[in-house]
């Protein structure tokens, strides 16, 4: 059964409902989640399937508002821990792991053969050699392009393998001449610029550099870091003006209205583009162009996870459910409903969806590695300082030296050498 919590009033209702749940003679597993309506419906479908197969277990999902959850989790993990809690991979889960609030489920990974089935997510779920949760979905990032804008500017469409970086920049000149923004973004929330920076960084120096930079191991004034900003400078004149004042959804409107040709975004944006009237006929997807030849291609794919809490009342049944969430069957179903990619390599993807197929293809052939995203790979405070730097560079490219110096100072403070 599923409980939804929408506010204080619903809390009372939930309390009353949970007394009735005790009356049923079932073993209860509580799960706190932060789903939007579509993922929530998909999760409810998964729970229904699981409860049909395991009639003695009752999964009680309490759904939170997405933003409120980020604060709520910090309270409920200590005050009133559920058995399962949603969160994110990599550095995002580190504070909870280090405070001992998430439970080690390495045994589940070993017994269910997950180190193989979920191999692509193994590094991002591992801290201190142990696994701390189950990754059940991710989505690719890349360049979405507007075919109508290409036609309006008279630019040749990218081929199967995308375009080269030189060609991309040359196209940008043509878009600019046609008064179309070559690349649009809305950076008022900062993170969209991190997507652009991450790809420039991954394509210029590769995955290891991205990972080391996010971990504070690389100086911002090093020639490698400068090389990334040099490529960033080439792109800067072609990015939508005033992006700092608009949301990513506002920029999506610019893109949908054919006023912009490309949008470096995650696959979740496809829903917004389509709501704006785009179809598979005029919306295209390509991987970010290669910059330094010969570097193994790495991609960004932020992963969502479910964790067993240390305070869980019913860890055994909760683990049974986690094993189910890790299975190819459950992941295929949930991700098909939500339009994201399963992390289980044996799971299937709807072949009729060109963006999912392209994303699955791009990620499964990314030999360089899978990055989580700047703000998940880097420590929270460092991530924010970095994103402010990226945004400032896009607005004031002449301030490069000041930006690099400030970032370097932040790095030295957070990671004393």
């Amino acid at each position, binding site marked *: 059964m599923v409980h939804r919590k929408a506010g204080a009033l619903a809390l009372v209702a939930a309390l009353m409902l949970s007394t009735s749940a005790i009356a049923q003679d079932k073993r209860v597993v509580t799960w706190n989640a932060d789903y939007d309506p579509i993922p929530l419906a998909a999760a409810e479908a998964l729970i229904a399937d699981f409860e049909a197969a395991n009639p003695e277990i009752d999964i009680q999902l309490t759904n939170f508002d997405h933003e409120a959850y980020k604060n709520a989790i910090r309270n409920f993990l200590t005050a009133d821990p559920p058995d399962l809690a949603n969160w994110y991979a990599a550095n995002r889960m580190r*504070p909870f792991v280090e*405070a001992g609030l998430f439970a080690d489920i390495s045994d589940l990974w070993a017994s269910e053969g997950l180190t193989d089935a979920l191999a692509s997510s193994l590094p991002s779920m591992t801290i201190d050699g142990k696994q701390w949760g189950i990754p059940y979905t991710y989505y690719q990032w890349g360049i979405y392009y507007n075919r109508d804008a290409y036609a309006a500017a008279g630019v040749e469409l990218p081929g199967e393998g995308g375009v080269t970086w030189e060609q991309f920049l040359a196209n940008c000149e043509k878009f600019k001449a046609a008064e179309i923004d070559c690349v649009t973004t809305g*950076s*008022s929330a900062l993170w969209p610029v991190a997507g652009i920076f991450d790809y420039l960084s991954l394509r210029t120096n590769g995955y290891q550099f991205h990972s080391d930079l996010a971990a504070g191991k690389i100086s911002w004034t090093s020639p490698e870091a400068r090389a990334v900003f040099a490529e960033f400078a080439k792109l800067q004149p072609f990015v939508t003006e*005033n992006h700092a004042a608009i949301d990513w959804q506002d920029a999506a409107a610019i893109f949908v209205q054919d006023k912009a040709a490309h949008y470096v975004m995650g696959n979740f944006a496809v829903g917004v583009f389509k709501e704006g009237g785009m179809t598979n006929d005029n919306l295209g997807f390509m991987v970010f162009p290669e910059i330094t030849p010969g570097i193994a291609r790495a991609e960004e794919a932020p992963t969502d996870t479910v964790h067993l809490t240390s305070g869980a009342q019913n860890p055994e049944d909760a683990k049974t459910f986690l094993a189910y969430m890790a299975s190819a069957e459950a992941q295929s179903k949930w991700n098909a409903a939500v339009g994201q990619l399963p992390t289980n390599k044996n799971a299937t993807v709807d072949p009729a969806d060109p963006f999912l197929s392209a994303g699955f293809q791009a990620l499964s052939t990314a030999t360089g590695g899978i990055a989580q995203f700047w703000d998940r790979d880097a420590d*929270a405070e460092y991530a924010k300082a970095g994103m402010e730097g990226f*945004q*400032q560079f896009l607005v004031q490219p002449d301030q490069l030296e000041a930006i690099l110096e400030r970032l370097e100072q932040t790095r030295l403070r957070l990671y004393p050498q």
Partner: protein
Amino acid sequence: MAPGLFMFTVYVLWPIVQSITLSFYDWNGLYNQDGEFTGTFVGMGNYAELIRDPAFETSLWNNFYWLALYLLALPAGLLIAIFLNQTVTGIRLYKSLFFFPFVISQVVVGLIFAWFYAPNFGLFYLLTEWVTGDGTAILADPDLVTFGIIAAGLWPQIAYVMILYLTGLNNVAPDQIEAARLDGAKGWRMLWYVVLPQLRPATFIAVIVTVIGALRSFDLVSIMTTGGPFGSSRVLSYYMFEMALGEFGFRMGYGAAIAVVLFAIMMIFISGFIWKMWRDEKER
């Protein structure tokens, strides 16, 4: 007295003591599984970091701009109050219309102004585009953004000050005005020497609410820019929120240190006000 003192201790004094204590710790806001505090004592470390923090400096400067420019609400409010202080048909309607901005929630004011300034379709943007040929997106410009937000804040604040002065003007003694008129005073001299001195209580309250309103400015920054672009429009209260409770923050000790600094700045003004009130009461 006792219940009041109890409330004051629990809801005012104790949180202040707790914030100051917390500012000496490095803590991410988490208790461990056994409910134990996980922070570490760092002494003055947070304050030492604040001094060298460029974002803190920006916030401090912005707070200063807020304070200085917010006081413009006083002359503007007085002007409108004097303008509205006349007896014509429907003056009550005009007065309530002028008061209207203060009735709207700050969040709504922020949204309205954010649209007003919005690039590509905002009225202000289109206006500057029409005048200069190149639109200015205030909220995307690091040098203008704070002033754009202050302008939004002034809109309701002027209405507030206006209503304070309107009630004050009701209490201006008509015989004194009459006497001054017989002595040949009018215009500026009438305002300066006869009306304003009688408005002193209203001015005092207006200064207090405006100064405090400027220092605790938070809603507009949060709604209009979330401190951006790249932190240019942060004020102390917002920076504190970002550091302590924001998505990339959860540095409770550092946030508490910012709160203590803001508290110290406010204390300067608050003690000034209290001292003046105490002095006035003694004079009676």
